[in-house]
């Protein structure tokens, strides 16, 4: 359509984007401030609050834990999610419809309820270590993203290509790795990134699955904010934003950014 939206709508959209961007700009500004309290615009530029992150051992430890959990959880989710997504697409007729719904459940059920239930019924019930509970919790909350994104890329995959390979004498398992997987590579990368970031940012599940010595970065940020009102948290936030930008740059390089919108 060649006709433009009404000017009023354009103004509203502009304000909405301003509303979306401005707070993030403010966080960046606050992180660079030389003052001991949070302020914007920054008064005197300094990177000392970034150094401060690494001087507080709780931040150091939780950053490591968060990265470990996000990486391991995502890998496990891919490991069990890719075969599941493959099965859902390849055996669409044979498998019942509720199976697809089952994999959506972890985002359908309130996350905070899931975190609490996992703590009450699993961790306390079995006496399982906190780290293991945390890993299980994170694996499950990212599983829906993995299954959905992989399913979406399998949906556009022509399975007759796989059959062609098998008819040419390739073993089914080998065919999956040599024919199917390379064709859904973009989906796997997208699923990894989406899952990793989701896990890294998670609050509601981690909230219950932290214990002495084990916590994740978002939980540590929450705790820090409630006690101190200094720019450290702003610096951590900026660090996380940088990570997001870096990830988006990787996505842009490999897949094109509009991919994320799907």
């Amino acid at each position, binding site marked *: *359509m060649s*006709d*433009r*939206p009404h000017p009023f*709508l354009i103004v*509203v*959209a502009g304000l*909405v*984007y301003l509303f*979306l*961007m401005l707070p*993030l700009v403010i*966080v960046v500004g*606050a992180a660079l401030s030389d003052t001991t*309290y*949070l*302020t*914007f615009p920054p008064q005197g530029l300094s990177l000392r609050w970034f150094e401060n992150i690494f001087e507080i051992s709780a931040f150091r430890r939780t950053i490591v834990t968060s990265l470990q959990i996000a990486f391991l959880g995502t890998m496990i989710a891919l*490991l069990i999610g890719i*075969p*599941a997504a*493959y*099965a859902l697409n390849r*055996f669409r007729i*044979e*498998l019942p419809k509720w199976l697809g719904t089952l*994999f959506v*459940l972890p985002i*359908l*059920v*309130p*996350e*905070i*309820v899931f975190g*609490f*239930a*996992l703590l*009450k*019924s*699993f961790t306390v019930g079995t006496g399982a270590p906190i780290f293991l509970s945390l890993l*299980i*919790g994170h694996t*499950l909350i990212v*599983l829906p993203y993995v*299954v959905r994104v992989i399913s979406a890329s399998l949906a556009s995959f022509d399975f007759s290509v796989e059959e062609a390979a098998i008819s040419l004498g390739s073993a089914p398992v080998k065919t999956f790795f040599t024919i199917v997987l390379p064709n859904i590579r973009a989906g796997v990368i997208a699923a990894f990134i989406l899952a990793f970031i989701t896990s890294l*940012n998670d*609050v*509601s599940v981690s909230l*219950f699955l932290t214990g002495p010595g084990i916590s994740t970065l*978002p939980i540590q*940020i*929450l705790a820090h*904010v409630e006690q101190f009102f200094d720019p450290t948290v702003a610096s951590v*936030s900026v660090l*996380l934003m940088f990570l*997001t930008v870096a990830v*988006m740059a990787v996505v842009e390089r490999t897949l094109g*950014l509009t991919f*994320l*919108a799907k």
Partner: protein
Amino acid sequence: MTSRRFWRRSGATGWALSAPATLAVIGFLLIPIGAVIAGTFMDPRGVFAPYISYFNSGFRTTVLFRTLQIAAITTIISLIFGFMTAYVVSRAPGKLKSLLIVAAVFPLLTGVVVRAFAWLIILGRNGILNQTLLGLGITSEPLEMLYTQGAVIIGMVYLFVPLMVLSLVGVLENIPKDVLQASSSLGASPLATFWQVLLPLAVPGLIVGAVLVFTGSFTAYATPQLLGGERQTVLATLLHQRAMVSFDWVGASTIAAIMTVITITIVLAMSHIARRINPMAT
């Protein structure tokens, strides 16, 4: 060969491949949540005792209604602004459109804690907004904006508008262009096309978006915790407080059960409605 064909047809391979994920969801999600909900009905005081005591508490019912209210207002605001923004984005020329989509994805990939924290800096007693208002002489004393329902709603809208924009851009782009062109070729003005064609066709998508935002804000924790504090306790913060501060596991389980039932009911009911009125389904 026959055995493989049998495996193919029976879907046993499919079951085998999806088994690990299926068992994980059942074992670590369905059973624990089921156990929590079932536990609330095994109270020595009686089957519904925890629920009776929940609804007898004025404070707790207030929390439930406050949570519903915040979620409803957040949803409505996000719908209105999300739809208008999505409409503009969907009409933007190629390059600008991708840029706008990226600009909506970015906050979405930034954590909820970071995004709530941003509003803490803005709305705080010594925050930017107060400094500005004082500096301009609009107020003589800093306003108490934090720990109000308004603060929580702003934080929630901030959280969910990008989600709404992205899902509605998808919805609007799925409406075939030639249907809109058919409308104007038949003499419908742009406004008539909007009301009589575009909006009715977007309704199922609007419902889906609304459900996403409603359930999301109904169960959010970090934003009400940081921006609402104890004064604006919602179900999620109450659940955490009951479980981790008061160690009232029965009370926490009851809240968990209420949240689950409300969420699932809304999702099922609305997706059923959305499917029924979806004109593009057939």
